């Protein structure tokens, strides 16, 4: 099967006054139809910029994002294709216009893309809401009357109403309570199974990733440092950053308290990335060659890629 989404050497640079700040520094990955690939990392790793580029909201500085043979930028401009890529945003309260009703919000893609009138749109809005677990009574509500979970369900209904093939999920559960979070994840999983959509799942929350993703790409300072099937990444993290990230994640351990073992240091600013490996300053394994060589992402085992000179 050829991949549905193909990201090649994506570079995104922002201008901060006169200074160029690299947000994404050469990211490549692909996603198959029906697959969930998670981009994991901490703030400043470039995962959100990558997400916006994949959704066509951000033009790459260099590099390409292609979906089903088309450039994503072209998809965003082509009225016949742009329903193919949709996105669910992090802040459910911000991603819905507070002045609009739920019906109008969910119908917006239909109204804009298919020039559908309200009566005709309602026949599709009602089942779309039902699919995310919301009844007819929500049609006339406004975002301020919704809980965080309900708002996110509305956002999901809006994203899926045009039957996209690729959905970018930018931290869709980060603003939700734990108990709601797991339900929204379950909903996303069920919808994917029914429709065979591809998800690009952006998150800093490893527990959610473990639950929903088929493959994980770990990002640090604008680069992917490790890629692999979810289960293997969690069982046997190879990159020292992935290891540190997994060990930092608090866990509920019923029998004895979780031992906190933090990684040292902080992520350097994107405008002051060290030469060589970007992670060397925090890496427990760092040696002289780490300052000299900028590690490339290479395949180390079946389906597993790693960017570290200390691999062996």
């Amino acid at each position, binding site marked *: 099967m050829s991949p549905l989404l193909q990201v090649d050497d994506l570079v995104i640079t922002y201008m901060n006054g006169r200074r160029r700040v690299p947000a994404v520094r050469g990211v490549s990955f692909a996603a198959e139809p029906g697959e969930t690939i998670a981009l994991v990392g901490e703030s400043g790793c470039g995962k959100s910029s990558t997400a916006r580029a994949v959704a066509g909201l951000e033009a790459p500085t260099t590099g390409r994002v292609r979906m089903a043979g088309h450039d994503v930028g072209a998809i965003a401009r082509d009225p016949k294709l742009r329903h193919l890529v949709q996105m669910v945003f992090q802040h459910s309260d911000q991603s819905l216009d507070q002045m609009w009703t739920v019906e109008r919000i969910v119908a917006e893609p239909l109204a804009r893309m298919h020039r559908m009138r309200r009566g005709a749109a309602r026949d599709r809005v009602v089942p779309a809401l039902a699919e995310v677990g919301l009844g007819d009574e929500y049609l006339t509500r406004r975002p301020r009357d919704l809980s*965080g979970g309900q708002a996110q369900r509305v956002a999901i209904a809006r994203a899926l109403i045009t039957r996209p093939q690729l959905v970018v999920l930018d931290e869709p559960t980060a603003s939700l*309570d734990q108990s709601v979070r797991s*339900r929204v994840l379950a909903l996303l999983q069920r919808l994917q199974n029914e429709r065979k959509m591809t998800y690009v799942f952006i998150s*800093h929350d490893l*527990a*959610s990733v473990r639950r929903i993703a088929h493959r994980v790409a770990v990002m640090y300072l604008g680069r992917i440092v490790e890629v692999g099937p979810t289960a293997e990444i969690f069982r046997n993290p190879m990159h020292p950053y992935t290891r540190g990230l997994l060990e*930092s994640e608090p866990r*509920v351990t019923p029998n004895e308290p979780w031992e906190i073992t933090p990684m040292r240091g902080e992520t350097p600013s994107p405008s002051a990335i060290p030469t060589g490996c970007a992670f060397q300053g925090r890496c427990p394994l760092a040696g002289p060659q780490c300052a000299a060589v900028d590690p490339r992402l290479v395949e180390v085992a079946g389906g597993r890629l790693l960017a570290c000179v200390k691999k062996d």
Partner: protein
Amino acid sequence: MSLLAVDDLDLRIARSGQTLLRDVTVSIERGSIVGLVGESGSGKSMFSLALMGLLPDGVEVSAGTAEVAGRPIFRGASRSYDTAVRDRIALVSQNPRAALNPTMRIGKQMVRVLRQRRRMGKIQARDEARELLRKVGISDPLRVERAYPHQLSGGMCQRVVIAMALSVQAPVLIADEPTTGLDVTIQAQILLLLKELMADGDRAVLMVTHDLAVVSSMCDQVIILYGGQVMEVGPTQDIFHDPVHPYTRFLLESLEDHVPSADDIGDRVTESSVDFSLAGCRFAKRCPFSTDLCHREPPLARRSGTRTVNCHHRGVS
């Protein structure tokens, strides 16, 4: 002796009469870390605001008593906040940057607090500030001293706030979501720091959080709050090992690494928001075991040994 003792505290919106907190009882011994856990709308932040005397306009303490190190926090018939207890409670809040003065260098802010609160001389205060910054794991206090808050990362700011909280030597420390908004690797650093600093056993710490995992690693005792009502109280390991209240069970089942079992109730818990004008148990609307009694009357605390459960139907076996 409890350093912080809150008994049957009620908070109410004056205009509508809705109770935001109902009969909340918290007691923290010296040297102990207690976790106050709840989801959004549980009233956990209101609780810490009440103890700091920072309740928003329109919210009032309508019943109950609270003492910090033997001194009542709320005085008189109107239960107004006694500002004299402020120097007995230190706060580490969710947004460290907002807790610092953006127009003043870190060193100056710390020296000011030390001079005012601990009556130190200028030079003595400066040395103490450096010492405190080192204590919270800042390796180059001279650089941080000269920095303005916006020049520091979120994790650094939180370290500074912790240093300032330590500087007033308050017997009670409230950590209100101290690591929410920080990256995981920084969160781990701050949690470890807090745990190490509290190891001397001089203080009582109230850790307010939504994150069960944080609680399980940090706290000796847990208080589970829902809709302004205490659901369950007990030693951390006991609660996580053997949750009794339906809400506690539901919360633990929603954790991603929870292994599903046959008697899970998660799927039967309905999703609806808290109704603060409800007379009965605040969880009754969502609870799969609720009966008429639950909707009618608030549950009484059932105690057994170290554990307390507020439920009409479930008790500790």
